[in-house]
């Protein structure tokens, strides 16, 4: 649930706020859970709504410029993981909200199409389309980022024109 909030909201601090609001809502609403959906789907629905609320609140705010405060710090190997993590976070932030939410619910929360459709309030076909477009855009953005990164590496490491080495 926390991962869903982090991946939808992107900004670390705001994602924690969303997680907190989601937990409060869950505690308050547990007595009214009627079992008509799976408990996990119900939890993810609340987490998604809390995260989207947070996204809408911060849309009027300028983003901080330092990446560490914006993107989540990964676990494991710092060097490659940090790069991959920041690339993915940055790419996710460029996706339209509905695509990002569908991608996160599918690939982070492991929900099936019907569950995502119930949470997003759209038909299954729309979920399928959002996922396909979201994945395509994500790949395109990440491809562009990698190309840009490669160009920067070549610029900084290539010897000056005309040098003999």
């Amino acid at each position, binding site marked *: 649930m926390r*991962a869903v909030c*982090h991946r939808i909201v992107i900004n670390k601090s705001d994602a924690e706020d969303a*997680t907190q609001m*989601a937990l*409060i809502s869950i505690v308050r609403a547990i007595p009214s859970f009627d079992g008509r959906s799976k408990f996990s789907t119900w939890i993810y629905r609340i987490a998604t*709504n809390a995260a989207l*609320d947070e996204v809408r609140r911060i849309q009027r705010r300028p983003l901080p410029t330092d990446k560490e405060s914006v993107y989540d710090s990964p676990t494991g190997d710092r060097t490659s993981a940090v790069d*991959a993590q920041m690339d993915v976070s940055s790419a996710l932030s460029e996706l339209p909200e509905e695509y990002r939410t569908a991608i996160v619910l599918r*690939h982070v929360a492991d929900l099936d199409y019907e569950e995502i459709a119930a949470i997003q309030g759209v038909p299954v076909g729309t979920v399928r389309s959002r996922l396909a477009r979201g994945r395509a855009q994500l790949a395109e953005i990440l491809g562009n980022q990698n190309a840009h990164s490669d160009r920067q590496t070549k610029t900084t490491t290539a010897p000056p024109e005309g040098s003999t080495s």
Partner: protein
Amino acid sequence: MNDDELDPKVLAALRDVAPASDALRNQHIAVALGESSPASSRSRVKWLSAAAAIIVMLVGGNALYAALSPSSDTPTVAVSPNNSVTTVPVKGSTCGAGLTDYTVVGTYSSVSSAREVWSSSRDLVVIDQTSCELLGTFTHPTVVATEKICDGFFAPFEPGGAQWVGKYKDSGTTLTLIATATAIQIFGGPSCVLIASHPLPAQP
């Protein structure tokens, strides 16, 4: 890679969210269970709690004043077509059109007839459309101010029997009414949760 897969490296990065520290986890749990924020970094939660407390005091103060005041101008909810009409009823909601200071929230179907729900600054009323009988009067619940509107939230539940009645505003916050076979329910807040459930008379 089929259509439903992401590049494994992207997928791994996507799922690699740093775990919360013990302190943060404990804080989240404590706040959720206590529904109050001990940390200054959660200032919005504190602000919302303060706003809710103010609303409770204002509503409670008005209710206490109304209850203690002997004045006859304390509004009484009654279904009388002879009262002055201050709202324009929507199609299918005619019994409550005579209520002063009430606006229609919506209508829904019960087993025996249609029902109307009307809202004023004080309460909600549910009226049987066939007999124009007042089925219930419910004081507004305490609500936490939020910009969230529960549009589309209930669509998946509708096949189960609950009906979407309509939306109304209370203290500047939009709330959603859902009717079940036995109760009228109020949903709202940042995550569209059940705020109040009012039982209604059993169907004949």
